[in-house]
């Protein structure tokens, strides 16, 4: 049987380890290579002492994905979605689901950067060119 406590088994810091790329072992390898004992040691070697915060911020404990979603679900539920006829530049839309799923919610589209390297960005460049065409077509004589 594991000697871990229930709190440990609940893995409240699991998301943290998902967000940060190198795991503990990799971090130690890398620290050894750059010549620092720990992240704090590397920080002390790198950041001028006079601007280092004297204590940690107080943002709150790390939390898991399910917990985070529950928090924000509660916040979302406090918004009341009425039918809007206000206009003024903002209108209700039906996002085509094929676009919602394949573009808006697709990291292939949302995690790319500005197409500074066009040779590996011809896809979104074509999509934007289409946007320009729509803009010009609808406005020209």
């Amino acid at each position, binding site marked *: 049987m594991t000697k871990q406590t229930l709190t440990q088994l609940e893995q409240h810091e699991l998301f943290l380890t998902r967000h940060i790329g190198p795991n503990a072992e990799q971090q130690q390898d890398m620290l050894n290579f750059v010549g620092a004992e720990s992240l704090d040691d590397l920080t002390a070697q790198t950041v001028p002492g006079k601007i280092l915060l004297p204590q940690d911020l107080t943002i709150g404990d790390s939390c898991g994905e399910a917990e985070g979603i529950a928090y924000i679900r509660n916040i979302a539920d406090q918004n009341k979605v*009425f039918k809007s006829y206000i206009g003024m530049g903002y209108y209700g839309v039906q996002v085509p689901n094929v676009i919602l799923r394949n573009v808006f919610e697709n990291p292939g589209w949302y995690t790319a950067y500005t197409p500074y390297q066009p040779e590996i960005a011809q896809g979104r*460049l*074509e999509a934007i060119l289409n946007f320009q065409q729509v803009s010009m077509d609808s406005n020209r004589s």
Partner: protein
Amino acid sequence: MQNALGLKWLLLPANEAVNYELFGALFQYSNRYGQITDYSELFATLRDNKVVVTVAADIMSLLLLKSPGAMGADVVFGSAQRFGVPMGYGESHAAFFVARDEHKRSMPGRIIGVSKDTRGNKALRMAMQTREQHIRREKANSNICTAQILLANMASFYAVFHDAQGLKTIASRINRLTDILAAGLQAKGVNLVNNTWFDTITLKDVDVAAINARALAAQINLRVDADGLVGISLDETTIREDIAVLFEVILGAGHGLDVAALDADIVANGSQSIPQALERQDAVLTHPTFNRYQSETEMMRYIKRLENKDLALNHSMISLGSCTMKLNAAVEMLPVSWPEFANMHPFCPLEQAQGYTKLINELSEFLVKITGYDAVCIQPNSGAQGEYAGLLAIKKYHESRGDAHRNICLIPQSAHGTNPASAQLAGMKVVVTACDKQGNVDLEDLRAKASELADSLSCIMITYPSTHGVYEESIREVCEIVHQYGGQVYLDGANMNAQVGLTSPGFIGADVSHLNLHKTFAIPHGGGGSGMGSIGIKKHLAPFVAGHVVVKPGRESDHNGAVSAAPYGSASILPISWMYIKLLGTKGIKQSTQTALLNANYIMKKLSAHYPVLFTGRNDRVAHECIIDLRPLKEASGVTEMDIAKRLNDYGFHAPTMSFPVAGTLMIEPTESESKVELDRFIEAMISIRGEIAKVEAGEWPVDNNPLHNAPHTLADIMDTEFDSRPYSREVAVFPTAAVKANKFWPTVNRIDDVYGDRNLMCSCVPLSDYE
């Protein structure tokens, strides 16, 4: 009235425009009441008088209406939101901005142009990029950097999917439902302000309070912000049942109107809502792209086909320095799609938006702690807009103290090009201060200029850690010097990913900063936007930040102008940053920063054996990014930074930031989200490339015919029999390492000719034959 640039503006009835000597005029089409007017004659007169005519238009209406271009407008702009992008309590949405040919070279922002690659094939790229960070500082007429590419792409796909006919049907349905609503109400004696419309009618002489009460009871929001008027704008989601409900809300029960009967009447007798002269005659969206993806299968595959051409974070690390391409976790993204966040109108009554209010307040509190400031203004939509908002706050602060003459903005040589452009737009005069050989601010020069210009000193804009990727030791002194001479410190938050949890702009001594929520706080870059540039401020500047004319959440600053159309800017993407901070917590945000330092220093030390590292700080450390200097290699071998950037594409990587902030360099920012495995893969690629450069240096490969010069390599290259004459193998070209072979990314075009594209600027869809 006058804006920060000194342009005076007058608010006039449209037909009075001809009575004034104007530089430009801006018209709304439709106007605020929904009225549509043919301005052709007026525009002709104005243009004869050399007035630049600009029109704000509604993209959906233009499918049915005579285009502003046909009326003679010079510039037309508007929101593309209603092409399939949710309201999201404000933004983020794409705008369109089009102009007559003669204005194209003075248009701000990004334009995609058609050029050709080295094989002579059609290839696209951003045209005239010199308008961006490489712009000559005194020439800047816009500080726009962030675009809204993800949202523009959604709107573009919306048009592709629906095609011209489908879009016209949607627009016609909206217009028909508006006709039915208007006809029913008029039949019952309700008076309208407007007698023409596309989708909006405005009721007058009505009991606004009673109507609004019935509307709210039916969970409906009407426009009631103008005295005695009720505005109603219909949209794509409106259905016939909604019209019946609106009749009840406005007329009360027992009105006896029937939507089908009203429709039959309109079909039989026609409608005057769009006068004949304003009906669109010309075809739109005739390009075949808008007529071949109407089945969902075809559409899904078109999207996938385009996606496959692009390298994003779901393929490999994008180590763009100063861009902080960290993980955008799925869990952070989920809430953005929820209707409770997506389908909120930004001007809905505040009591309906309690969730957003709570989210914004909590996020602001997080950001206040993280920045060490006293308050946060969420509104600005991008880093550039944050800079503008922050500088305006400084300007107003000085004015409030009788120091309106303070208009000098000091900017160190190492600054991002957006800084001087923002200062220029805020009506300030830029004075550049020197950097020393290590890339740090030259304190003597700063002190000399600050003291010499003390009477007119407004502020300094400084990035920290510096754009050179080091923690400058003297940052506190920089702040002290500027304060000593009466200036304010704008600390550019582009590099906040090296500060969070370790230090803060407030603690360092700055007065205002923008935060790139799309860098540091996990909002994805979306292929080039959206972003958020919320600003943190010290107490004394808080009364001077952006407010909003419609939504007034009771802040001190509500009387101030807005920098964005919506009170909280791109509110719909704020849940991402909230989730990021909430999930990581105190421990996680600090560890993220520390790991970003570790990853950068690891790469720097690994690469320093092969490439010179340009700048380091104390103990030979870099901050969260490092710059490698390629100039000596270029000198020795003829291989350029561009060659190396493109060669990295062959290895499956996006190039780091090239030639910024120093020409001939690459700036690498790995972020905390990349594992050691990925860092090692990148390092392996860079070392392998160094070996290739050595072969060019040694004369083994000619300078003008080697894998670097010819990069990136495409399938077309290796299928070409002429490839046999190259001095290197196909294997070297496209599978230079085992890792690449296992997970190959194929660039779809060869190197693109920028000069050709800029000289022959073409920014519309190319003939289909070019794709085939």
